[in-house]
């Protein structure tokens, strides 16, 4: 009886909160997603292909077996990192469009250490990760510094840094560190000690061919760390305050320049980890142009996840699912992957428009 009462009061008190949470956090992404699938269905109907078949394939392709779901999570791994990277910067009012470049730089740094140092795994893996973090952070800190010191807009500079990174990586991998005797622009393989184990080898319920690896758990851990960092630490507070109320932050003695630099460095470091996941977890080498726009998809992931680390986890899995489905649909129904890419674009525009409208209402 007592418990019932307490529960009832708890629910009663929380109702507006839950409603608020639902309206602000769950409703827009849900609406956007249903709109996305509806749009895909309409396009298929116009092209005289069966939308029903399409919808059923979506479920079959993603949930029919653990193996399939493993692929979904595998696709989600880099997106968790890039989504978090975008969100960290966004929380402090900065835009990091440079995740793509930062993840390449991070990936290369990790690969470089993995190729050159023959150490036992417990030393080599942290060294690889550390070097990727430093490289990504440096790539992110440059636009941060230019913004803090010279007022140069970080959006433009992160975009420019992307192209510089592409060129630099292309140079390194074709001229200096190319695998001997190979035409493919890739480095030699990293030492076995640096390779992250596949989850299939730890949990035999997954088939050994499944590429899902330890980096996924690492990504989940990173999301939790980001949540704790943003919510409970002094630095996280400074970061959020700068984003929400820059005047208050300045009045409270927070130096916006310093915060800008370290936020961009942190964001770059997290983006660099996405490169680690690819190099240490899957390819075991650096391949030129390996990312298929993960840095940019990270923006969509952060947006769909409402810049909340746990929301980003869910959003990244969703995008991982979309990528997996896109691949299967391309094979089974001969519908080009571009449809899903276009859908992603529409989804993002829809979400930012909703955000803009709600901002105007307030």
């Amino acid at each position, binding site marked *: 009886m007592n418990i019932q009462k307490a529960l009832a009061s708890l629910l009663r008190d929380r109702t507006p909160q839950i409603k608020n949470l639902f309206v602000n956090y769950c409703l827009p992404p849900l609406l956007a997603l249903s709109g996305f699938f509806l749009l895909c269905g309409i396009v298929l109907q116009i092209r005289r292909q069966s939308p029903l078949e399409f919808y059923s394939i979506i479920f079959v392709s993603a949930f029919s077996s653990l193996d399939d779901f493993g692929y979904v999570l595998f696709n989600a791994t880099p997106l968790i990192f890039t989504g978090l990277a975008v969100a960290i910067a966004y929380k402090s009012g900065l*835009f990091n*469009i440079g995740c793509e470049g930062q993840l390449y730089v991070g990936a290369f740094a990790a690969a470089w250490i993995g190729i050159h140092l023959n150490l036992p795994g417990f030393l080599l893996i942290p060294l690889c990760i550390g070097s990727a973090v430093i490289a990504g952070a440096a790539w992110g800190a440059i636009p941060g510094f*230019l913004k803090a*010191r*010279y007022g*140069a*807009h970080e*959006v*433009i*500079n992160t*975009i*420019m*840094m992307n*192209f*510089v990174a*592409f*060129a*630099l990586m*292309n*140079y390194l991998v074709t*001229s200096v560190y190319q695998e001997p005797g190979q035409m493919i622009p890739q480095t030699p393989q990293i030492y076995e000690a640096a390779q992250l184990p596949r989850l299939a080898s730890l949990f035999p319920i997954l088939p050994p061919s499944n590429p899902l690896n330890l980096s996924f758990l690492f990504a989940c851990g990173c999301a939790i760390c980001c949540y704790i960092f943003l919510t409970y630490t002094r630095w996280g507070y400074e970061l959020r305050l700068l984003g929400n109320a820059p005047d208050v932050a300045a009045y409270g003695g927070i130096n916006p320049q310093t915060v800008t630099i370290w936020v961009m460095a942190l964001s770059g470091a997290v983006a660099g980890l996405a490169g680690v996941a690819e190099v240490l977890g899957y390819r075991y080498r650096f391949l030129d142009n390996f990312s298929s*726009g993960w840095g*940019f998809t990270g*923006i*969509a992931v952060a*947006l769909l996840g409402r810049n909340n680390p746990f929301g980003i986890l869910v959003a990244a899995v969703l995008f991982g699912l979309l990528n997996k489905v896109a691949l299967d649909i391309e094979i089974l129904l001969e*519908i*080009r*992957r*571009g*449809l*899903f*890419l*276009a*859908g*992603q*674009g*529409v989804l*993002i*525009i829809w979400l*930012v*428009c909703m*955000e*803009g*409208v709600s*901002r*105007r209402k307030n």
Partner: protein
Amino acid sequence: MIFELIPTTLRMATPLGFAALGGIYSERAGVINLALEGMMLIGAFGYVVGTQVSGSTWIGLLVGMSFGFLCALLHAVATITFRAEQIVTGIAINILALGITEFLVPTPEQVGGLPQWKFPFIGAYSFLVYLLPILVIVSHILLFKTPWGLRLCAAGESVEALATMSLSRTKWQYLGVLLSGVLAAVGGCFLASEVHYFTKGMTAGRGYLALAAVIFGNWRPLSGISACCLFGFATALELANRWEVPVQLLNSLPYILTMVVLAGFVGRSRPPASLGKIDG
């Protein structure tokens, strides 16, 4: 030696120039336009499809321009009417354009180029190459010497000035963004008419390079086009590749230069005061 590089420079600079001019109109009106890349791509796509369907390159150009217009309309409605984040919308449009053009990729059938005009000493180029400098000069006069242009600039510079004249900021911003879409699409049409095909993601970052040119040229048409020529020259050097310099260095030079200029190490690039500000 340098003269050999001029034809390539012009061919590389022209698509950039159109897109950059578009970017100037949009950003002068206060709307950040990262969607130049997507607008160019959709323009190139429209040109190829329009030409394939109608058989006329003029219709192709028109279709390309209208596709660019539609893309810009989407950007304008989202950012101006719905007040969506301009940067995110721009990137979303790029993703959308990449997706749509991949989904509906046209048949790999060769299309004709746009009519070429031949002049003694200069050589034969697509008429767009000659049109661009005229457009740049017209834009310069229009933007800085006429009331029309000053109002457009006021939308990006000082919203109060517009308000005191009881003019609507929305209208001028729409105008700027729509113009930018059409111009960027013309750049894309030029690109497609030069290579005669449409390939997935064929703009390959040229929209962003055009944006760099806008910044490098301090948001002014004449300086912007000079930046495009400089970037085009860098590409021409890269393609000629007779030196020991790594091509990737030449490739990244425009981006590094833009960062240097934006930071104010050499000269100073100053954006319009209300650029990207949603409520002015």
